């Protein structure tokens, strides 16, 4: 069977790339150092593929067809080149993606799918920092974190557990890295843009470190919008990956970065 080798959560703001100059700000340097650390860990883990749960920003999906959870299929995707993150080609682990989709549907999880969807900065910003070679095949999974009605956090955790079961049911042996993109607190395109709720972010990371997914699935969607901003809704991607593992996580870096208008976090989301 396939094997989950690790699960990480990382913030995905494009400003990490677009508005970064080495040595200009100590907090920003620490964020980049943490990304470099995870980049090294991923190299050492040597995964066969990455299953990445992140969110689109109305680039690949719009109102004519708007999925809550969508699995990307095919053989290759391309970045949008949006928000100052360079466009790159990314190989898709199409066979594995098709397995996740089929398994999910058979299990009663009504997933959407898209063939070779383009990837915006929600995917490309972390991938550029964590695997600039773009040589590890990807299963992109888009989870709605931007447009109401949003899925409840309980459902996001259920999807994570489904992912784990589907990976374990895979007959071939692949080493799978799980990666969540987004968060933590930030407000995008609203008058509060620039605010960061450090208290909320530290509470959230405390739940990650305790492996306490129950407290996270009890969160109300509207409450998170108020406390952590509309961008904070992306914590659902972390919750999905958390639910795919077990045991406590570990915060590798947390920095509220006002210039990037985001509570920037990088963490391991479970032990195994």
């Amino acid at each position, binding site marked *: 069977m396939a094997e989950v080798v690790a699960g990480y959560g990382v913030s995905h703001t494009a400003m990490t790339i677009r508005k970064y100059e080495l040595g200009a700000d100590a907090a920003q340097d620490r964020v980049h150092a943490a990304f470099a650390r995870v980049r090294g860990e991923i190299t050492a883990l040597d995964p066969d593929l990455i299953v990445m749960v992140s969110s689109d920003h109305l680039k690949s999906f719009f109102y004519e067809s708007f999925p809550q959870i969508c699995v990307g299929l095919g053989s290759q995707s391309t970045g949008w080149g949006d928000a100052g993150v360079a466009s790159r080609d990314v190989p898709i682990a199409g066979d594995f993606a098709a397995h996740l989709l089929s398994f999910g549907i058979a299990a009663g999880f009504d997933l959407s799918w898209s063939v070779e969807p383009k990837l915006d900065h929600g995917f490309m910003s972390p991938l550029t920092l964590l695997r600039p070679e773009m040589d590890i095949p990807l299963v992109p999974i888009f989870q709605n974190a931007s447009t109401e009605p949003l899925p409840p956090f309980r459902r996001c955790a259920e999807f994570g557990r489904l992912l784990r079961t589907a990976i374990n049911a895979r007959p071939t042996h692949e080493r799978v890295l799980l990666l969540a993109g987004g968060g933590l607190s930030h407000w*995008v*395109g609203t008058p509060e843009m620039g605010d960061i709720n450090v208290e909320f972010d530290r509470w959230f990371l405390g739940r990650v470190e305790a492996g306490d997914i129950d407290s996270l699935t009890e969160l109300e969607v509207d409450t998170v919008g108020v406390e952590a901003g509309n961008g904070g809704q992306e914590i659902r991607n972390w919750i999905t990956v958390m639910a795919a593992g077990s045991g406590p996580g570990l915060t590798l870096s947390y920095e509220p970065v006002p210039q990037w208008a985001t509570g920037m976090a990088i963490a391991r989301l479970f032990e195994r």
Partner: protein
Amino acid sequence: MNLELDQLISSVAREPALLDEMALATFGTRVSESEIRMLVAKDLAGLRSKGAHPLLLMQFAGVFEIEPMRALGRQLPS
């Protein structure tokens, strides 16, 4: 949400030249004349007040090189 306005903002963000056409003709759309005026004026705060999607406002701001935080009313250090 303001679905019709969002669709128009999305179209403009993908094809900015549409904005010039809107300045000349407001017919053929299902958004109000005041919303069209806000679009042409690149009035992010006004569009926000009409229920435009925040992520579309960011796309719109990016295309027209508008600093979104200031345009949305946040006080920034000069």
